[in-house]
């Protein structure tokens, strides 16, 4: 207990710190609400929980407003009973607040655009998150990710050597594919026209987005580079409300671009990363930067318009729709560029309704993907988005946000929609007409090319016989020896007896679940070093990634998995492990 015996130390600190966070924008949103109800139908949580008023944005804001009024507004100090002012007293009060601000809002800001009074509830919500984080009250996943970004420098705890090895591997792949020694991913090149920053999810789980971007830069003849450090353009400070983290992360990236004397920072497709880096980071970090910043969507569009790259839209004929990331569209106004780009690289675009600034959240925003305790709520609220997607009749949903890729992927599986999620970079790369710039004699290594997985033993663990057959065939065709398991118990036993070089593991299996098998593998001294590639679309995966009782999996692939994705990820993981053990 603190100053007196009626208020906990943490509650006291939350109230005290609130005073430092109040600016005109914040106070305006705290005092202007007239409870007209216009925000209510804007919120995907309300629409999917119509009988529960605790999801209404005005109600949620009132949970913060009441202690603001009690301590910082004269009406609440003089007439608390009249304006419903109430202080915070106990740690239980703070836990309740945590449930509201982290568990019942994705900070999507759809309520804001529909508020006639200009109340920006998500900004207030973010402040309240930051107040709770400052006293150590936050979901476990938020703590894990924040600490990774503070100390490792990126949200997913990717170590520098792992990042560089992945880029090196992708660079070699690119050089081989394009048969040009100049087709490389340059690291820390000085005076580049473009410094390209990415989301750590790309390194860890979606390396194809990096190689696709590299192919586009190469084709455009761009003078570009990727930084060896300070490369993460995401910023968990936006989600956790921790302005200090927001500033530190943004400055690491800005400092690196300035150290490299880069002329322009291009930010890969990530909604919150774009908003944090381009729009918020300079305020959080209290710095001005001397270079331009641009979304890779704008960069790709510019390349096509300027004739730097040629595309053939007939390569993307499947019906596609576009999901606007909340941070890109509502907070940064980027709504037309992705649509223009889509019109240039696809043949069958179908608009989603509502769209642009009125589009619904993917329901995984605001850090929700890292908070597994709220997964059932998140997926329930995703019904709005699922209905919206289904109504388009598209089989592919495109989005310019990695977070949305995960959020949409989860809800597509949950609501059994026949759709895939992809990003503009993948579509542009697929439509790219690559002109080989240099004919050079490339040394041929027939054995390796014919059987890149020769000598490798892989355990495929999945209860779907069709998938086991598919994966086994692909892997065996590439030279691997495949062991097969059809349930969790069998997978664990065969891992012990067969000592594979890699395990592909389905999460949903009879007997021991894949999650249990995974944790047991990681805790078994004889098996913990075996890399694991999770193959699933189930939300339980988030727990493995974000709430780390054990080291996270080395990779994951969404089902249905393509031959290309399976091979790319398996080879990347094996190459990575090989580098590590031979170092």
């Amino acid at each position: 207990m603190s100053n007196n015996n009626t208020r906990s130390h943490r509650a006291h600190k939350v109230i005290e710190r609130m005073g430092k966070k109040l600016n005109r924008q914040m106070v305006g949103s705290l005092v202007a609400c007239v409870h007209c109800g216009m925000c209510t139908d804007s919120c995907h949580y309300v629409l999917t929980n119509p009988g529960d008023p605790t999801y209404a944005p005005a109600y949620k804001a009132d949970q913060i407003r009441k202690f603001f009024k009690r301590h910082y507004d004269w009406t609440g100090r003089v007439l608390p009973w009249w304006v419903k002012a109430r202080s915070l007293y106990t740690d239980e009060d703070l836990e309740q607040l945590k449930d509201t601000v982290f568990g019942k809002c994705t900070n999507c800001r759809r309520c804001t655009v529909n508020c006639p009074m200009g109340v920006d509830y998500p900004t207030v919500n973010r402040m309240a998150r930051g107040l709770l984080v400052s006293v150590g009250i936050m979901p476990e996943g938020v703590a894990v990710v924040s600490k990774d970004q503070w100390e490792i420098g990126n949200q997913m705890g990717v170590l520098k050597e792992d990042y560089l090895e992945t880029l090196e591997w992708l660079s070699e792949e690119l050089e081989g594919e394009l048969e040009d020694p100049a087709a490389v991913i340059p690291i820390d090149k000085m005076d580049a026209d473009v410094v390209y920053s990415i989301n750590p999810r790309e390194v860890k789980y979606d390396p194809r987005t990096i190689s696709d971007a590299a192919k586009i830069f190469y084709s455009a003849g761009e003078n570009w580079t990727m930084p060896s450090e300070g490369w993460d353009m995401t910023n968990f400070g936006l989600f956790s409300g921790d302005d200090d983290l927001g500033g530190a992360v943004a400055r690491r990236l800005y400092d690196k671009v300035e150290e490299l004397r880069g002329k322009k920072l291009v930010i890969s497709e990530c909604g919150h990363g774009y908003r944090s880096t381009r729009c918020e980071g300079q305020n959080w970090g209290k710095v001005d930067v001397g270079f331009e910043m641009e979304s890779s969507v704008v960069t790709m569009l510019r390349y096509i318009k300027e004739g730097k790259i040629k595309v053939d839209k007939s390569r993307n004929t499947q019906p596609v729709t576009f999901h606007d990331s909340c941070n890109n569209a509502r907070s940064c106004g980027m709504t037309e560029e992705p649509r223009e780009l889509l019109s240039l690289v696809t043949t069958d675009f179908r608009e989603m309704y509502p769209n642009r600034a009125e589009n619904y959240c993917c329901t995984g925003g605001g850090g929700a993907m890292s908070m597994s305790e709220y997964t059932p709520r998140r997926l329930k609220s995703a019904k709005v988005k699922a209905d919206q997607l289904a109504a388009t009749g598209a089989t592919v949903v495109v989005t310019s946000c990695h977070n949305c890729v995960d959020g949409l992927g989860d809800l597509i599986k949950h609501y059994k929609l026949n759709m895939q999620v992809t990003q503009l970079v993948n579509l542009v790369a697929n439509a790219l007409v690559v002109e080989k710039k240099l004919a050079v004699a490339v040394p041929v290594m027939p054995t390796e090319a014919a059987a890149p997985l020769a000598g490798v033993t892989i355990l495929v663990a999945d209860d779907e016989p069709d998938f086991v057959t598919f994966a086994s065939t692909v892997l065996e065709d590439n030279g691997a020896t495949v062991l097969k398991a059809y349930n969790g118990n069998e997978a664990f036993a065969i891992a012990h007896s067969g000592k594979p070089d890699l395990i592909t593991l389905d999460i949903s299996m009879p007997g021991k679940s894949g999650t249990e098998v995974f944790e047991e593998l990681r805790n078994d001294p004889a098996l913990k070093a075996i890399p694991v590639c999770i193959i699933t679309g189930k939300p339980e995966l988030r727990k493995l990634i974000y709430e780390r009782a054990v080291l996270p999996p080395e990779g994951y692939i969404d089902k249905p998995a393509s031959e290309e994705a399976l091979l790319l990820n398996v080879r990347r993981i094996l190459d990575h492990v090989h580098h590590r053990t031979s170092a």
Partner: protein
Amino acid sequence: MADILEVNGRKLRLVKGDITDLEFESFVYYARHDLALGSGFGTAIAQRGGPEVQGELKRLGSLQTTDVVVTSAGGMKAKYIIHAVGPRFQEEDLENKLRTTIRNSLKTAEDSGIRQVAFPPMGAGFYGVPLETSAKLTLETIRDHLSGDAKLTDVAVCLLDDRELKLFRECFASLGNA
């Protein structure tokens, strides 16, 4: 400006980099009460150090705030890790607890025969100790310790980025003038 200060014949220095990848005899890890490595630097220790470190920690159980233990560093460049449970998130009596944690880290290192220790900016970052407070307490406490009958010969404070380095340098400069 030199980032090395000589105190009583011993070195106190500032370095920039990843503390878990430093060529130094030992480093301090700002540990949890349950000694689970967790994320952040804990991720790096688990990955670079291997299972040995976690195995030792499991046998040690849990600690109170300001307690410190030493383990090996497994396959890392350092030989030892000093796991120090410091105060966090604006808790009561934070500055005194932080000073005590730093002192206990220095003393525990010496009792273990260690001569070189690298510190992170203690408590700053995720645990929310303001960087200015961390710089002042970390540097002053180390300097005071080295001024006495210390067995340590070389103590570093390892900063992750320019923002941290700049602030520690300012504090370091005033330390030298004190």
